[in-house]
Structure formats: C-alpha cells, structure tokens
C-alpha cells in the first residue's frame, strides 16, 4: 500500500473525509501512480475540499409541485470569514451583556452556550462544516444546505 493510499484511508477512518471523497482521492492517486507524473505531489482535490468559503442555503420550489401553492425562492450565501469575525467580536462582549444575550437566545428556543465557542472550537466547527451537505424537501420545496 502506497503512503498516499494509507493517508487517505487514515483520513476516512478519522472521519475527516467522506467515503465518496475517499473514493475520488483513491481514483486520483491510482491515476497519478499509473501515469508518468510526479506521484509524490498531493492530489489537487484536497485543496478544494479544505478551503470552503461560503455556506449556501437554497430553497427552490419542487418541479413536481402541482397546484397554486405559494412558491418561495431563497438563495443565501454567507462567507465563513464572517463567522470567525463574529465570534471574535462576540468574545469582546462583557460578561453581563453576554448573559443577557444568552438569556434572550434561550427565550427564543436557541439552547446553546455561545460563550463556550472560542477560536479552537470554531475551527473544529468549520472543519466539520466542510462535509456539510443537506438535501431536504419541506412543504413542496427543495432545501439545500452546503458549503462551497
């Protein structure tokens, strides 16, 4: 087993990449090793997976929708940089004000302690988001959430 294949399988075992991504990478490494190009170079697709810039939320009416139901179109693209910057800004909020924000969020049903979200936790969160891909059908609308 080559070191590249072992590295890919380790990443799959650690949950850093999905099975589909691992399959793509294995195909790429087999192509590289069978060809005459430099096999030691990492596959370019890793860079593509590792650098998502935006979270996209798309809501479109299902093409199979019949009748005169209301049709919604939503297209939201949020830069991931703004999440990091927002956490940095939120970390400067004084404790008293932070508790007030926390209580307000709890009243709205958002049960999460944002004060525990530091830079390290945020990096882990963003890394986990790299594999985020949600396709759902809600009220005859297709909802897609993914990073790009």
């Amino acid at each position, binding site marked *: 087993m080559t070191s590249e294949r072992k590295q890919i399988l380790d990443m799959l075992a650690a949950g850093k990449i999905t099975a589909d991504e691992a399959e793509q990478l294995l195909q790429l490494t087999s192509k590289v090793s069978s060809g005459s190009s430099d096999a030691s170079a990492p596959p370019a697709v890793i860079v593509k997976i590792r650098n998502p810039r935006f979270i996209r939320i798309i809501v479109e009416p299902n093409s199979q929708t019949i009748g005169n139901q209301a049709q919604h179109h939503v297209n939201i693209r949020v830069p991931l940089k*703004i999440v990091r910057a927002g956490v940095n800004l939120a970390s400067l909020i004084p404790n008293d004000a932070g508790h007030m924000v926390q209580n307000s969020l709890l009243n709205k049903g958002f049960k999460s302690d944002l004060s525990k979200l530091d830079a390290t936790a945020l990096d882990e969160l963003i890394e986990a988001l790299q594999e985020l891909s949600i396709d759902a059908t809600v009220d005859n609308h297709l909802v897609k959430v993914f990073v790009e």
Partner: protein
Amino acid sequence: MIPPMVMWFKVQWFGIWVPLFLLWPIILVFLAIMLPLIFIGMVIAGRVSRFWVVIRIVLAAYSTICAARGLRIDIHKEQTVFEIYIP
C-alpha cells in the same frame, strides 16, 4: 482587508446600490474625533486599561464588516422580494 465599497439592497420594487465608500471617510473622521475623547474620559475615570478593549472592539467590528464581502441574501416569496448583495 478592504471594506465593501458598495451594497445592493432591494425591497419589493425598490432597489439601490448603496455607496458604502462614501460612509467610510465619515466613520473614520468620527472615530478620529471620538477615540481621543473616550481616552480622556477613561483617564479621568481611572480606567485606562478599558480603552484597549474599545480599540479591540473597533478593530473586530472593522474585520467583521470586511468579512461581509460576498454575502448574498435573495428571498422571493410570492409578491415579496428582499435582496442584499455585498460584492
């Protein structure tokens, strides 16, 4: 980091490119006037160390504004249209 220079904003039929580049010099002048006053106020109050918190908040707010480049929100619901785009 460069802050966004323009912003597209549309509600219903009314859409406009907001010239944000006109706003930044005004905010810069405002900060140039206010920060020394805040510093003097904190010296008088004996809480100079808190001034650096103010500086950090200003810088964090600036980086958040810069990070907003690329934000896009398009919502079309029946007759309702709402769009924001920061290129």
